[in-house]
């Protein structure tokens, strides 16, 4: 019954070691810069720029959209979903974005630790594996919509980071 606090403490130890070596403001700056970098990468992918924001794409509701308030944990959860989806896309275009997302999640983790927030790593969607068939059939749509929504989500996260996100 007393294993919970102990495990949390052990989990926090390496994070605290990070924070001790790395000033938190640098973590914040790096988070912002990395979000901007990912956004720029998506912008640099030419075919994503032609997607109209006015036209709703049906059948891809599992891809996260804009959310009114993003906490750190919610951010991590959203990014985990995108990672899951992007992993199934052709690696040529998105592999670097995947790595960036992983770094970003680590940064959010550090930020959460710095705030003393419980921050369980999200494992993404459990039902996503069943959608492999959909992904196979609409690879282009998946890629365009995913990147487009990821870009929007990242810009939203950027604003949240400037405001000081909750746990």
């Amino acid at each position, binding site marked *: 019954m007393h294993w919970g606090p102990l495990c949390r403490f052990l989990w926090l130890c390496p994070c605290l070691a990070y924070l001790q070596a790395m000033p938190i403001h640098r973590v914040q700056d*790096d988070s*912002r810069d990395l979000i901007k970098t990912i956004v*720029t990468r998506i912008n*640099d992918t030419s075919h994503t720029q032609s997607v109209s924001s006015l036209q709703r794409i049906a059948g891809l509701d599992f891809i996260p959209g804009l959310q009114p308030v993003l906490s750190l944990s919610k951010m991590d959860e959203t990014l985990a979903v995108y990672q899951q989806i992007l992993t199934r896309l052709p690696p040529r275009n998105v592999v670097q974005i995947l790595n*960036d997302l992983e770094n970003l999640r680590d940064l959010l983790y550090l930020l959460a630790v710095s705030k003393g927030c419980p921050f369980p790593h999200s494992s993404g969607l459990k039902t996503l594996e069943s959608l492999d068939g959909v992904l196979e059939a609409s690879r282009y749509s998946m890629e365009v919509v995913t990147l487009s929504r990821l870009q929007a989500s990242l810009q939203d996260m950027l604003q949240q980071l400037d405001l000081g996100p909750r746990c």
Partner: protein
Amino acid sequence: MGITDDGNLKISWSSPTLTPFPLQYQVKYSENSTAIMREVDEIVSATSLLVDSVLPGSSYEVQVRGKRLDGPGAWSDWSTPHFYTIQDVLYFPPKILTSVGSNVSFHCIYKNENKLVSSKKIVWWMNLAEKIPQSQYSVVSDRVSKVTFCNLNATKPRGKFTYDAVYCCSEHECHHRYAELYVIDVNVNISCETDGYLTKMTCRWSTNSIQSLVGSTLQLRYHRRSLYCSDIPSIHPVSEPKDCHLQKDGFYECVFQPIFLLSGYTMWIRINHSLGSLDSPPTCVLPDSVVKPLPPPSVKAEMTVNIGLLKISWEKPIFPENNLQFQIRYGLSGKEVQWKMYEVYDAKAKSASLPVPDLCAAYAVQVRCKRLDGLGYWSNWSNPAYTVVMDIKVPTRGPEFWRIINGDMTKKEKNVTLLWKPLMKNDSLCSVRRYVINHQTSRNGTWAQDVGNHTRFTFLWTEPAHTVTILAVNSVGVSVANFNLTLSWHMSKVHIVQSFSAYPLNSSCVILSWMLSPSEYKLMYFIVEWRTPNEDNEIKWLRIPSSVKKYYIHDHFIPIEKYQFSLYPIFVEGVGKPKIINTFIQEDIEKHQNDAGLYIVVLIIISSLVLLLGTLLISHQRMKKLFWEDVPNPKNCSWAQGLNFQKPETFEHLFFKHTDSVTFGPLLLEPETISEDISVDASWKNKDEMAPATVVSLLLATSDLGKRSFCASDQCNGANFSDAEGTEVTCEDESRRQPSVKYAMLVSNSKSSETDEEQGLINSSVSKCFSSKNSPLKDSFSDTSWEIETQAFLILSDQHPKIISPHLTFSEGLDELLKMEGNFPEENHDEKSVYYLGVTSVKKRESDVFLTDASRVLYPFPAHCLFTDIRILRDSCSHLVENNFNLGTSVKKTFVSYMPQFQTCSTQTHKIMENKMCDLTV
């Protein structure tokens, strides 16, 4: 079989294949050495057996057989025996591979001549060259010695040997076997660079320091940390190898793509060798910290209009998102651009404006960037951007100009041509489209004329004052600061340049200097104008500030040309009067260059003068001595009876005593050099008649000189005289005479006669010819208004042996004596102006000559040459003075008595020079 690092004998074998159950092994070995001989039989489950306490020089025979470990089974056959002999020196470990800075130890058991050497007596040597200090030894047992090396340095290859040989020796003997020590420098520098798109990290490392180890392989291994690097990177037990490729430059290059921008990549190089593996010190790289950004795009450069700055603009590259600093380099566009640098630390800045010296030149500009926090690398320089030369501002000033006035200067209407130099880019900023001339006169007011892009313009100057201004116009506007020039009739007469001189330095430079006099007008500047007079159109000019008094003109001056320099003072009120000089460039240059030569010439001239003066002084002394020898013996002179001639100061007294009625001129005791040839050419200026030419020569010369000087021509003798005056002239036969007159003196106390100028000239000639009757001539002379005073000639000859030196006294007694001689014509005794008395031959003194104004002949003169009255017009004296002899004003100086008997007398009333006395040798 082999010796382990611990000094044990390791017996190992391989298990039989395809055995489905584990085995046990029975090992049988025999040890044979000088000390012991034994047989051992052991059963083990492993595939090796360690035998301790091995001794150098021992030999082992080993056999192994196997059997099922559990359950029933039988032993296999014994393997074939294996033999192993341990050397007399046993090193363990026999070889060590280690890295620089590490510590290692070798053990040794040494058997010498079948006897183990005590560990206390073992010494260690390195490479058979240096003994290892005993402080590094330690005794492990009575048989085992240990040496330790601390903080090892890299092994220096010796030829093909890439290791150090470590020897275990007795005190005085080393066995030839040795241990091998390989020390490798594994400090491999790994440098990484992330590309501008943040997708690839390239790491490079060199193998130069570890190439010496033959048979080794190198591998980069890394471990990625999720975020950032630890403070002290360490080799993680879990690592991945990274493929690297050797490049032409000897570097290995490894590419990480894709990358985790914020993950720490800890990397190291692993050296694999048969002796073991070594790892280089690990390096941690954060890809985000080693970014080499893309160069800034869209770099543009331009010169800002009306501001005049070089404006450079750029854009931030898409990556990285960090704040960036920028570096600008710019320079005049050309083959080899001399770059100037400018730093921009404002991350948001996208442009910079820089002052540049030349606004009208094309500049090349490049920009690069780097993270503002200093991490990473500078990007490459952007593609160069170039400025376009265009008008930046209005011209800073109008052109400097000057005028040429054409036509008659005396007329009121003159054609004036304005000349100006085209504005350079620095002044026009950067071009001139046209020039505009503003005129201003009191009567016609102000008007402007557009003259296009020409540089000269002619207009008519009609009013007393006419002011012109030339404006320069470009695409931006009209020049603000302009020069005025007022053409003024009145001011053209104002002269303030006192002096003006030009000194050519060389063919390319002339120094001008000038002095000014005070002026009430306000001086603005000067204009210097120069030209070659031969080339009318070639006029050059310069504007010089008013404060300058010396100026260097640089031009190509042709050395042989003559140049005219003019200095114009320019006042507010108008152009002043110029000072004009002419200069020969070559002459002046040579003058400067030959100053030293000039000084030498002057010195030579001075020396020559001194020498001449000395010669004259010597001659003077000799003459003085000569004449004093000729002083007649006063005891033979009647007038000198009773006088003491031993006292020179009484000379004057001598004269006073005997010449009561005679006025003496200044007693000139010092004879002077009179080696002159005096010719008096006088001609009658009367309208009706011309006097015969007469030449009066006073000579002290050799015979040649006298011959030349005495004009002994027929035409100059009787002919002229007789024709003109009816005077008998006795001419001496030239063939008989070879006059060598040694001395001649004309003495006079005459006063200068200013009235002589009114008289005509008489050409008189005193030479070998003299007129015997001079009364007509004399009369004719008396008609004139001469004021010739008494003069006398004395001519000493050394070539007339018959002339007797008279040694006569000079008084009335002389007349008497002359009368007694009876050869002198007695005429005009009232004209008693006989002044001279003695002529002597230098050589023989045989002849004396007496000349009286009454007789005007010489006696006892040889018949062939009579000396009579010779009258010299004052005017002719003037002529004489002008040409040869200064008789007019310096007669007193010129004619000096040389003996005390000599006297001068006062002039006659009609001021005619009465008598002449001469001594002619024939």
